[in-house]
């Protein structure tokens, strides 16, 4: 050590030591490294706080580092990124698929409708893919309101809406929506990660997009396209980017989040309208055709069923109008009918009645129980069955009276009169328009016996042969009267005595009288009722007195009379 050194040592001893140590630190790399390592974090921090220069200067080298790392050790990076990439890729694929499927749905829906064909043409003219064009045209929706809500406390950060849409207390709406979110999450999501993303309310759809600190809830009128969710997410991301921390710390003082409204209002720009002047496109043609087919089928079955039920009504009416048939019910299964009820054996056949309204027997099942009808037509038929009237006779019933008209033998009429009261439901008989068909024949018989004369020799002694003839006549007459009685007629028999003009007129009258009485006596003995014999006035002739044998006789005159009606 020389003097100078000694002097230096004396003057700058302490400083020199320091200087040495400093130079040692500067020269020795390890120490320098340790020093920088010591302050580096702090330095980076400060620099970053001060301005963005650090980021700028680091961006490139760090970027290159990463690139190199990726190139040299892809596996390590892949492993490290896997937990991030997996969900991200899945999410992206799902999103794309959802959009795609919606596009397909709409494309299919519109591909064959008239509207679709028109759009196809317009799209090709505009040089836009059809799917894209359809998307443009079909999304008729509008975001009516947007709520930005703090996820922490449910307080409304901001709220925007179209002029026209009605607004309730938006703070309450925001709180309630948050409460519902909480409720849904607590109630239906076991791991509490689930969340309410959409709700439908009539023409409105509510969509919620979740960010780390805020919830964006949009009230959308109409049907939004799935892709809108991505657009809304982008808006929420932007809001988070600018105001994330402020929203996290939001305590209800809106001044801490200035101008967020400008961002939020972007939500209201999402809308799609129908083309002006165009009406809504109709349903697709397949649906129209399907509907038409359905309508046609319905009409066909409807008309058929209507026709069958018309037939049923007709059958019912026809059967009910048929005397002696009482229908309790008619069932229809398809085209077949089942008829149940009561039928008088004398009534028309149900099958015949059905035939009259064009229902063939093979569509008919008949199940009728017999009964006795008191309907007039059936009573008349029963009377006819009972009395077997001649063809010329007409039988009808009105009320409880049996009317019989036309021509019939008297005998028949008598049976009728004596037995009509056996007929249930009839208590009177009207035969005022019934004439006897055997009257003519009978009056001929009467006429043939009438004016029969029997001659006397003298006094009341008959000429030879006439006594026998008178007896014969008496028995013929008796037969005739008998028949007359049974046929309902009465015959008046008059005996008239006659004498020649010789002698005293008074004596002649007495003789004529005796002759009539004598002849009547002969008749009476043959059983002919004496009451029917009357003495005629004497034929008083004022001519010359002649012994005219041809005047000595008795003559019988017969007169056919109707018998009075029996009671």
């Amino acid at each position, binding site marked *: 050590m020389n003097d100078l050194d000694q002097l230096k040592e004396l003057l700058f001893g302490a400083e020199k030591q320091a200087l040495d140590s400093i130079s040692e630190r500067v020269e020795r790399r390890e120490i320098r490294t340790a020093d920088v390592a010591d302050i580096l974090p702090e330095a980076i921090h400060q620099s970053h706080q001060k301005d963005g220069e650090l980021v700028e200067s680091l961006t490139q080298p760090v970027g290159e580092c990463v690139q190199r790392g990726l190139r040299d050790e892809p596996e390590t990076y892949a492993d490290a990124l896997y937990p991030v990439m997996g969900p991200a890729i899945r999410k992206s694929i799902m999103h794309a698929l959802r959009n795609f499927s919606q596009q397909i749905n709409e494309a299919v829906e519109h591909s064959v409708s008239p509207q679709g064909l028109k759009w196809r043409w317009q799209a090709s003219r505009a040089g836009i893919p059809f799917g894209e064009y359809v998307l443009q045209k079909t999304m008729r929706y509008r975001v009516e309101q947007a709520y930005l809500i703090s996820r922490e406390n449910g*307080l*409304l950060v901001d709220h925007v809406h179209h002029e026209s849409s009605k607004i309730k207390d938006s*703070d309450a709406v925001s709180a309630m929506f948050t409460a519902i979110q*909480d*409720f849904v999450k607590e109630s239906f999501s076991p791991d509490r990660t689930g969340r309410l993303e959409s709700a439908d309310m009539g023409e409105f759809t509510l969509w919620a997009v979740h960010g780390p600190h805020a919830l964006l809830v949009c009230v959308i009128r109409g049907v939004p396209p799935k892709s809108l969710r991505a657009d809304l997410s982008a808006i929420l991301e932007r809001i988070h980017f600018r105001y994330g921390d402020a929203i996290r710390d939001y305590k209800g003082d809106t001044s801490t989040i200035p101008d967020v409204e400008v961002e939020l209002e972007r939500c209201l720009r999402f809308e799609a309208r129908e083309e002006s002047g165009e009406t809504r496109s109709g349903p697709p043609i397949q649906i129209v055709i399907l509907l038409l087919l359905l309508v046609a089928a319905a009409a066909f079955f409807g008309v058929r069923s209507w026709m069958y039920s018309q037939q049923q009504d007709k059958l019912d009416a026809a059967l009910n109008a048929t005397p002696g048939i009482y229908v309790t019910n008619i069932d229809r299964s398809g085209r077949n009918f089942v008829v149940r009820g009561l039928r008088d054996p004398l009534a028309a056949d149900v099958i015949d009645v059905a035939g009259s309204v064009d229902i063939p027997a093979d569509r008919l099942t008949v199940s009728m129980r017999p009964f006795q009808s008191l309907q007039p037509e059936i009573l008349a038929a029963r009377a006819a069955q009972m009395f077997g009237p001649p063809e010329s006779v007409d039988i009808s019933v009105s009320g409880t009276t049996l009317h019989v008209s036309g021509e019939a033998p008297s005998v028949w009429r008598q049976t009728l009169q004596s037995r009509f009261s056996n007929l249930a439901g009839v208590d009177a008989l009207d035969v005022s328009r019934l004439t006897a068909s055997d009257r003519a024949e009978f009056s001929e018989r009467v006429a043939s016996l009438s004016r029969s004369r029997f001659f006397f020799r003298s006094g009341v002694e008959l000429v030879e042969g006439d006594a026998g003839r008178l007896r014969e006549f008496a028995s013929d007459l008796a037969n005739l009267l008998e028949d007359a009685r049974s046929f309902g007629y009465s015959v008046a028999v008059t005996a008239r005595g006659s004498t020649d003009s010789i002698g005293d007129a008074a004596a002649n009258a007495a003789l004529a009288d005796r002759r009539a009485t004598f002849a009547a006596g002969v008749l009476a003995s043959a059983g002919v009722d004496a009451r029917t014999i009357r003495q005629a006035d004497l034929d008083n002739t004022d001519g010359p007195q002649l012994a005219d044998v041809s005047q000595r006789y008795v003559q019988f005159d017969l007169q056919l009379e109707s018998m009075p009606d029996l009671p």
Partner: protein
Amino acid sequence: MTPLTSKVCVVGDFAVGKTSVVERFVTNHFSEEYLSTVGVKIDTKEIDFPTLGMTHKLVIWDVAGTEEFGAREMAYLRGASGYIYVADGTRAATLKAIERLHKQILEAYGAAPGVLLVNKRDLEPDWEVSDERFDAIATRFGNAYRTSAKTGDDVDQAITRLAELIIDNDMRGG
């Protein structure tokens, strides 16, 4: 005037009058009818503080009554700036419930402004909470009121007080 909006939660046992107190405060009505609240019911009301130059809008979450919060109720309470504790003066047990609920809130979300309403003051003859008991809990809570949703006594005062406490708390915190 600067607007401020806060979430406050009304908590307490069943049928102590939570909904009634809120209804009295918001619409100045009272109903004898008891319709138990399911889940949560939300009302809002603005209070003017002219001296502070601000309006304070309270978004009031009237939570279903319970002696002890479950997960769902806890979710409803998240982010509240203040609490309205309601007990029923005619049932001392409801005060016990308040203590339990208060503890749960403290544990889950930390300290926050709160007021205690011992309600149904109009039923004084049936009162089960002694003055000593009330005073003791009042000192612990800081802000306690004997209220009646029926007559409206002290309801406004209590809730307005909470609104003030929240503003205070905000200014100190922010």
